[in-house]
């Protein structure tokens, strides 16, 4: 390969890695709620859909490029609806307004139904997240692929995916030591952040809505995480203060 081709392959690798990190963040968040097996299954299903799309349409992706904003908006709104609900639930738990495990005391059957339904919804979130990011990688491969070759561009994107998966799995063990509601709260903040980013970005255009680009996700997460804890503190029930501190 020439220096220019190495440069092109590196660009595809790095740009794909950014997209895969975003996808992995969503899978990671969902895995904490429904388990690694189901979350990985959702991710694999989304990657399969992308592979089938590529096999069918090849490099002729003008239609996908035109629709990506609409897809982004639809997924973003879905994440906002789901994320806001989880966010409020986690805040209420921190505040002591909803018991941490009240469902376990009674309504065992209802709880089982609820968990099963939430599990299904969480699976869909992981699937859609990976699908959207995968589509963006696909657009990237096709856009930059002509500077080197499509196999080289696709290989760089696949290598980036493997690196992100390897690094991500290293985080698995430390995360198991974090309290349950703190994890759920982090998941809600992450889902809301992506929902905000994609929802508005899909409606008014990503560059117009978020001049900072993907970096906006970091301040979105920080804003939701900080504000949520402040709301939980303001809404706390005095008698449960001990449990709130313990859980945090």
């Amino acid at each position, binding site marked *: 390969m020439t220096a220019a081709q190495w440069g092109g392959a590196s660009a595809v690798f790095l740009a794909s890695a950014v997209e895969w990190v975003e996808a992995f963040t969503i899978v990671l968040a969902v895995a904490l709620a429904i388990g690694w097996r189901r979350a990985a299954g959702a991710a694999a299903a989304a990657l399969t859909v992308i592979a089938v799309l590529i096999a069918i349409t090849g490099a002729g992706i003008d239609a996908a490029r035109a629709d990506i904003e609409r897809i982004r908006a639809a997924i973003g709104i879905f994440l906002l*609806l789901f994320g*806001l609900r989880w966010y409020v639930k986690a805040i209420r738990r921190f505040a002591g*307004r909803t018991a941490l495990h009240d469902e376990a005391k009674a309504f065992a059957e209802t709880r089982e139904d609820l968990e099963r*339904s939430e599990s299904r*919804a969480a699976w869909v979130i992981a699937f859609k997240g990976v699908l959207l990011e995968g589509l963006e990688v696909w657009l990237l491969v096709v856009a930059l692929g002509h500077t080197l070759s499509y196999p080289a561009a696709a290989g760089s994107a696949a290598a980036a995916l493997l690196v992100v998966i390897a690094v991500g799995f290293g985080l698995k063990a430390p995360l198991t030591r974090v309290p349950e509601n703190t994890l759920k709260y982090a998941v809600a903040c992450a889902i809301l952040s992506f929902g905000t980013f994609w929802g508005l970005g899909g409606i008014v255009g990503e560059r117009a*809505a*978020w001049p900072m680009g993907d970096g906006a996700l970091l301040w979105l997460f920080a804003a939701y995480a900080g504000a949520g804890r402040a709301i939980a503190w303001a*809404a706390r029930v005095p008698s449960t203060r001990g449990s709130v501190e313990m859980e945090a």
Partner: protein
Amino acid sequence: MRKLLQLIFGDVRNVASVAAALLAAYGLSRVAPAAGGALLVLILIGAAALQAF
């Protein structure tokens, strides 16, 4: 099915909050594009605060 939808999207307040936040952010984005995102975040945090109490 109805129960599943409610579990995913929440109650009317949840759906109304997201719809109002997106509409307001979209409106502001037409005048000041970069400010729309901040407004969306603020409205959603406000909605969460109202629902949390």
